[in-house]
């Protein structure tokens, strides 16, 4: 398309979008939509324990909403694919278990310790942030495996060895449910802040064109580090709360690659880079996943793999991304 025709196209399209005349309305509508989504989430999850004692379905839905949302911080906003995302989940679970069981600390402090442990490991791995895209993903996966090996080498007195840890005495599903609820709200708040703040703008600039961002004054390493720290805290907390909820921790399930895989699938199915993306994706696929998981456990992996391939080939920008592409006039209203 030549310059002229493109310009006329944009010119012609402009009168259609109300936001041109009233720009403040754009961000207003966007906040309203996002506010509505968050309210809906609160209303859906807050009263559940009042009605039923079978919290599992809703508990794990919150878990995946949180995992997918915080995965979006690194993948959608900073442009990294941390394939070893599960490492932080596992570290959180083990930190909680060890602090509670081995050191006898109360659960809330153990959870705070889990978040701190996740962030500390995230900082330790900060040098890998210098790596370009795919190499970062690969190295991150290797580091997750290394983390699992390190924990398996630690004395069984502390980590429970191959048997894992049983958190007997901490059993309180309702409290754990609300702990997950708070973590989810925390992740949503962090996402809201990220998308509005200057850090969010810097991150999206890096994602769009790293070198160009550098040339206009963005300190790429430092900016990415901040997003990274935020993104490591939430999976650690999630791992810790999940350990509290199930009262059991073992290496295989704490460092199961499926945790990364599902975070990716949910975030991508919705659309990376949009706040609502992971929420749409997790809501759409979680129920189906649960159904399959319950009835055909081996098929679960197979179907997950097929879904990833199909998404990448047919809907690479996710549900929300495809919508934004198809109806580009509405794109600016999507949070």
């Amino acid at each position, binding site marked *: 398309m030549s310059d002229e025709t*493109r310009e006329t196209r944009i010119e012609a399209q402009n009168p259609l979008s109300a936001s041109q005349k009233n720009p403040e309305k754009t961000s207003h509508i966007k906040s309203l939509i996002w506010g509505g989504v968050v309210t809906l989430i609160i209303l859906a999850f807050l009263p559940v324990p009042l009605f039923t004692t079978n919290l599992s379905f809703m508990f794990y839905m919150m878990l995946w909403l949180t995992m997918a949302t915080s995965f979006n911080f690194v993948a959608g906003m900073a442009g990294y694919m941390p394939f070893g995302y599960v490492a932080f989940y596992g570290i959180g679970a083990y930190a909680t278990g060890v602090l509670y069981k081995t050191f006898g600390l109360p659960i809330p402090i153990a959870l705070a310790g889990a978040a701190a442990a996740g962030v500390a490991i995230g900082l330790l791995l900060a040098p890998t942030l210098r790596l370009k895209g795919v190499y970062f993903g690969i190295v991150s996966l290797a580091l997750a495996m290394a983390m699992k090996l390190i924990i398996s080498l630690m004395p069984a007195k502390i980590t429970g060895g191959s048997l894992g840890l049983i958190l007997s005495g901490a059993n309180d599903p309702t409290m754990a449910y609300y702990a997950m609820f708070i973590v989810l709200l925390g992740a949503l708040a962090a996402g809201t802040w990220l998308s509005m703040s200057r850090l969010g703008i810097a991150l*999206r600039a890096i994602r769009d064109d790293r070198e160009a961002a550098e040339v*206009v*004054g*963005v300190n*790429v390493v430092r900016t990415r580090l901040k997003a990274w720290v935020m993104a490591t805290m939430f999976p650690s907390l999630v791992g810790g709360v999940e350990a509290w909820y199930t009262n059991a921790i073992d290496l295989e399930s704490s460092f199961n690659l499926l945790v990364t895989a599902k975070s990716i699938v949910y975030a991508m199915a919705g659309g990376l880079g949009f706040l609502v993306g992971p929420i749409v994706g997790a809501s759409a696929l979680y129920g189906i996943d649960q159904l399959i998981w319950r009835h055909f456990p081996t098929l679960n992996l197979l179907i997950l793999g097929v879904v990833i391939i199909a998404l990448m080939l047919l809907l690479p920008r996710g549900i929300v991304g495809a919508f934004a592409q198809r109806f*580009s006039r509405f794109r600016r209203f999507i949070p």
Partner: protein
Amino acid sequence: MLKVDQLVKTFGGMTALAGISLTVPDRSILGVLGMNGSGKTTMLNCINGIYEATAGEISLDGVSLIGKAPHAVFSEGVGRTFQVPRIFPQMSLLENLAVALLNKGLSNAQVAEISAHWLNKVELYRLRHNYAEELSGGQQKLLELARIMVANPKLVLLDEPFAGVNPSLALLLIGIIREMPQEVGCSVMLVSHDLTSVYELSDNILVMHEGHVLAEGNAEAIQKNPDVIEAYLGA
């Protein structure tokens, strides 16, 4: 004032810049001419820190730029555009400009005011909420220019600003560049192989050839310089 002294850049065994020296005085435009592969873009990449210079010195108002990362060079007041515009496609025009103002310690109102000023100047204000990828190639070049101008740079490096820009936008661009030294108070290094606009805009012109400075002087002197004529027309 930008001072480049004996700048050398080699890639493996290949010498891209073989000792370039030049100065860009305050409030002036230096045009840089040269064929493809003469080292123009390499020189820009060395000045703004994308490449590390092999040898030589680069300084802006006495502050050395050697060894500084691109974002630090930008903080020193050096803005730069690319031959193929590099905007942030999935961000609105306003957000594109906001990126350059992130570390300036400005309030949101100030950011909005400065952005509006420059978007008006490049005639893109009405598209300020559009995504940058919706712009035409020429408009993207204007956006890229506005994005460095909002930060109030001391020096801007423009790499082929007229390449792929339609005539009416080129006129707008020429107008903006022409008034930069006096109205904005910044100096310009204009790299191009479009002779006409370089002759028209530049206070001083440098001709590069195979990593060397072939000739330097005002437009008239350059046009008469036998070396330049031979390099461009002969051989």
